[in-house]
């Protein structure tokens, strides 16, 4: 009797996550896959085959765009880590009490407005008639207007800005759990700042670093707004390509294939990253 009730309780608790997974993740993906393996041969005529996937690998344009997107996302992740780590270390280790809360809050405040508004903010700053360009001119540092928008650097700035919080939060959590006495012991034993960082702090923070990197990488790779709005005429982004196939080309079949490839290739990159950093997914996700 008791086992029956506990079983019922177990299934009731399982139901929401199970429904979520099946209805919102698995079923749509099956549908997407079915669409992606149908090739269009004429109006309202389709046949089953892997032609859409063949197009992706056959036409350099598509996989080059994917490679470009992946490389820029990895670069954005690295930059976010380099910028985020000192901030997180400062918040977690060098501040106490109220200052700590205030600093943490200040990192979060920009995220209270939507991503669209933040991106428009960057457009106002970077454009030729924008804040930075006019300020530099009035200071006499440059003679004519300078265009900072519509290039890959602008995309990079936007990506780092939109995702840095997702790096800082896991880092602060893991660094917080590091006992200060370990660092002190390191100094007592004659360690230098560099060696303590390398031997004590970074190994301890590794799960946080990896989980932060996974989140930031996935957010950058799947970002649509920032690359479209800040990027220029050469700045192709893979998600923009998927949008184009679905909406302006009416080619859902190819768009679905691209969507699936994005899922598969990004998972492969994350898997490789975990292997290279010798972390397991359960470690990374379990400890933060």
């Amino acid at each position, binding site marked *: 009797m008791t086992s029956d009730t506990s079983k019922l309780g177990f299934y009731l608790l399982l139901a929401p996550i199970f429904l979520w997974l099946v209805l919102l993740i698995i079923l749509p993906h099956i549908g997407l896959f079915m669409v992606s393996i149908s090739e269009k041969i004429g*109006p309202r005529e389709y046949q089953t085959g892997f032609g859409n996937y063949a197009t992706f690998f056959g036409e350099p344009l598509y996989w080059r765009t994917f490679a470009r997107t992946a490389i820029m996302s990895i670069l954005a992740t690295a930059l976010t880590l380099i910028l985020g780590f000192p901030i997180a270390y400062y918040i977690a280790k060098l501040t106490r009490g109220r200052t700590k809360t205030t600093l943490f809050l200040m990192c979060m405040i920009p995220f209270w407005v939507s991503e669209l508004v933040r991106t428009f903010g960057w457009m106002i700053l970077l454009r030729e*008639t924008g804040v930075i360009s006019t300020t530099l001119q009035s200071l006499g540092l440059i003679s004519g207007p300078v*265009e900072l928008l519509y290039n890959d650097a602008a995309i990079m700035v936007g990506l780092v800005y939109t995702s840095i919080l997702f790096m800082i939060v896991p880092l602060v959590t893991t660094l917080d759990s590091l006992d200060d006495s370990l660092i002190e012991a390191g100094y007592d034993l004659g360690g230098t700042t560099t060696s303590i960082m390398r031997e004590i702090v970074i190994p301890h923070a590794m799960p946080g670093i990896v989980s932060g990197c996974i989140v930031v990488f996935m957010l950058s790779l799947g970002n649509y707004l920032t690359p479209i709005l800040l990027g220029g005429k050469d700045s192709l982004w893979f998600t923009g390509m998927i949008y184009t196939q679905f909406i302006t080309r*009416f080619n859902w079949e190819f768009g679905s294939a691209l969507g699936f490839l994005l899922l598969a290739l990004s998972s492969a990159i994350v898997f490789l990253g975990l292997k290279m950093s010798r972390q397991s997914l359960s470690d990374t996700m379990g400890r933060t």
Partner: protein
Amino acid sequence: MKSTLVTSLVVATALAAPAANADTLRLLTWGGYAPEEVIAKFEAETGHTVEVTTSNNEEMIAKLRATNGGGFDLAQPSQDRITSAQEEFGIYKPMDMSKVNADLFIPSMLKATAGNTTFEGEVYGLPHVWGTSGLVVNTAQAGDVQDYTDLCDASVAGKVSYRLKRPTLIGFAYSMGLDPFAAYGDTAKYQDILNQVEAKLTDCKPNVKTYWGGGDEIKNLLRSGEVVASMAWDTGGWQLNADNPDITFVAPDSGALGWIDTFVLPARGRADDAAYDWINFVMRPDIAAMITNTAGNFTAAVDGDAGVSADLKARYQGSFDQSAIDNIKWYPPVPAGLEALEGATLDRINAAN
């Protein structure tokens, strides 16, 4: 006795009038085609309520395709995009001409649109708003830009913008002395034209500041002076002209590209009567003028230009003399499958360095 009769009559009318055919009209249209005051007037007169969703040609088709033509009761795609979408996806239903007051429409436009939107013997579209796309130029800084290919001139390097969409391909083709519309039926010939345009647009790429996406984006670029010449819609140019007299719409030498936005009924629309009521309402001359004053484009309504503001008429006449009007290239219906070729071309231009 008499008072009872009167009361019952009043009650009956009060109940019957709005309840007889009060529906919710879900309208899928362009920004500016359903101004607030027009909706308020329509709701007061007919008792229907109107829900507006603004969109563009591609998104309209994509939205209707996702629901097999459901979710909306009336849509307004351009006339050249109707038969191919119907052939591929079957998202519309034919117009019942007996429910439309044909006297409100300019006969030549009604006939032309009917011809262009006939699929398997049935008419799907009625003309509503028409306009053109061509060049919007800051005449003080780029007065030499008179045709699409002038955008590739060194004098305007880095200060040019256009869209990476099919109108750009068509406009450049005409400007290069080709005739893309005549090649619509011949895939090989059309591909040849696309290849030439691709080479031209790839060469032209260093001149471009950015490819614009939305109407507000290009207006901002022109208003701030960051862009001095671009391909854009006539209304955008006229709106900017109101703020800065130097900027205006220029009908290109090789001809502006003319479009007509239509009324079509989505296949699974639920409020057809309300849709016909809306069509017959907005085509009235007084309402058509209200729409022209907000959208900036003229309509297919008889006498629809009578109530249009004098400023707008002056700007229109400034951009179009009679020969420019005669030279407008009207989009014929796009054959199904042509857009796949254009898409591949646009992707290659976008990726070219």
